[in-house]
C-alpha cells in the first residue's frame, strides 16, 4: 500500500469511525448474551490490505484511542491489537489471500486470538474476582460474529483505500483476444 497523507487521513477516519461504532453500538448490543467486537477485525483488515507496518501502527493507535475514551489503563488494548495487526500483516506478506472466505476466516481466528490475548494480559495484571467458564462462550461467540462482520469490513476498507492498493483488481475482458486473420 502506498501511504500518502490523503490515505493516512482515510485510515484515521476509518479507525475513528470503527472505535466510535464499537463503543456506541456493538458493545451495547447483545446477541445470545455476547456483544460483537469489531476492533480486532478492523485492525486485521487494515493489515491484510496494507501490510504489517500499517497493521502494527493502526493496532496501536486504535487501542490507544479506546483506552483513552474509556479512561482505562493505557497500553492493554494497544498491546493486544498491535500483535493482531502484525500477525495479519505477516500473513498478507507471506501468503496469497485465496478465495473470498479468507479475510472472514482470518478475522475470526485473529479475534479469538485477541480475546485470548486480553485474557492473558488481564490475568497477568491480576483479577480480583472469580472467573466464570461462560467467558469461553463469550470468546467463541465473539469470533463467530467476527467471521460474519469481517467480510463487509474488509470490502469497505478495500473500497476506501483502493487508490493506495498496489494490487489492482483484475479488469474483466469484454472480448477474448483474437489472432489477426483468424
Amino acid at each position, binding site marked *: 500500500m502506498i501511504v500518502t497523507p490523503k490515505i493516512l487521513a482515510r485510515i484515521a477516519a476509518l479507525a475513528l469511525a470503527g472505535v*466510535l*461504532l*464499537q*463503543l*456506541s*453500538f*456493538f*458493545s*451495547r*448490543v*447483545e*446477541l*445470545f*448474551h455476547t*456483544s460483537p*467486537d469489531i*476492533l480486532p477485525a478492523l485492525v486485521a483488515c487494515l493489515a491484510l490490505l496494507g501490510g*504489517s*507496518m500499517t497493521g*502494527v*501502527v493502526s493496532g*496501536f493507535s486504535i*487501542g*490507544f*484511542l*479506546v*483506552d*483513552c*475514551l*474509556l*479512561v*482505562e*489503563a*493505557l*497500553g*492493554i488494548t*494497544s*498491546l493486544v491489537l*498491535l500483535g493482531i495487526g*502484525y500477525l495479519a500483516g505477516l500473513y498478507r506478506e507471506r501468503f496469497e489471500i485465496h478465495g473470498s472466505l479468507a479475510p472472514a476466516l482470518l478475522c475470526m481466528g485473529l479475534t479469538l486470538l485477541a*480475546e485470548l490475548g*486480553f*485474557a492473558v494480559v*488481564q490475568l497477568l*495484571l491480576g*483479577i*480480583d*474476582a*472469580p*472467573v*466464570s*467458564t*461462560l*467467558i469461553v462462550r*463469550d470468546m467463541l461467540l465473539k469470533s463467530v460474529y467476527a467471521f460474519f462482520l469481517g467480510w463487509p469490513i474488509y470490502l469497505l476498507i478495500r473500497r476506501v483505500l483502493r487508490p493506495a492498493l498496489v494490487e489492482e483488481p483484475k479488469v474483466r475482458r469484454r472480448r477474448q483476444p483474437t489472432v489477426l486473420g483468424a
Partner: protein
Amino acid sequence: MYRKQVRRRRAVLALLIVGSFVLLTLTYARGSTGFQRGVSTIFSPVQEVADRALKPARDLVDWFDKTFDARGENSRLRAELVTARKQAVATQEALQENGQLRKLVKLDRSPALAFSAYKPVTGRVIARSPTVWRSSVTIDVGSSDGVHVDDPVVSGAGLVGRVASAEGGSSQVMLLTDHASAVSAKVVPPGVQGVVKPEVGNPEELILDFIDSTKRVHGGQSVVTAGWRAQGLASLFPPGLPLGEVTRASILQQEAQQQVDIRPFADLRNLDLVQVLTGGSRG
C-alpha cells in the same frame, strides 16, 4: 532493500511494544491521566451524537435478542409472579404493622429519607467497554454536573455501580460486574452481611461472599447495600439500595462459609438511563 524494510518493520514493532509497556506501567492502577481526560472531554459530544444516531439500530438488534430470550423467560416469569403475589400480600401486612410501630416509637427512618441527602443526576449511557474483562460504561454527565469520583450510580431497578472517574461532561462508571468491584451488602430479612463481588464473564450473576455459615440464606431473598460506618471510614454506598435477589445458596464446607449467588435487579447489560447519587454522606 528488502532487508532494510524488514529491519524497519521490526524496529517499529519493538518500539510500539515497548511503548505499550511503558504506558501500562505509567498508568496502571493510577486512575485517569490529564491526557485521557482531555481526549474523553473532546470526544464525549461526538459519542453522544453517535449514541443517539445509533439508538434505532441498537433497539432493532435488542428486539431480536429479546425475542430469542422471551421463550425461556416466560415460564420463569410465571413462576416468579406466583411468588411475588404471595410476597406482596405479606408485604402489605408488614407495612401495616410497620406503620403502627412507627406511630408507637415515633421513628421515621424510611430508606427514602436516607437517600434524600443525595441529589440524583440523571445521565445517559453513551459508550461501553468492548471486553468482558473490564465492565464499565461512559455516561454523559460529569464533574460540571456535580458528579464526583465514587458517587453511587443506580438505575430504576437498583444499584449499578460507582463513578470511577469524572471529567467535565462525561464520567466512567465501574459496573458491579467489573472484576475490581466489591460492595458490602446484607441479605434481608435475616440481615446477614457479606461482600458482593462479580463473576468475571457472567454478567447475569453476582456472588455474595464472606457470609457466616451459621445463618442460613435461602433463594428468593433480597440483597441490599449494607452502608456501614466505623472509625472515620464509611461505605461508598448508602444503606438499603437494592442489589439483587438470591438465586442459590451453598455452604462451602472447607471454608466454613456460605456462598450465595445473586441475580442483580438492574439489567447491567442493557443500561440506557442511570442516576448518579451526588452529594450526601457515605455509609
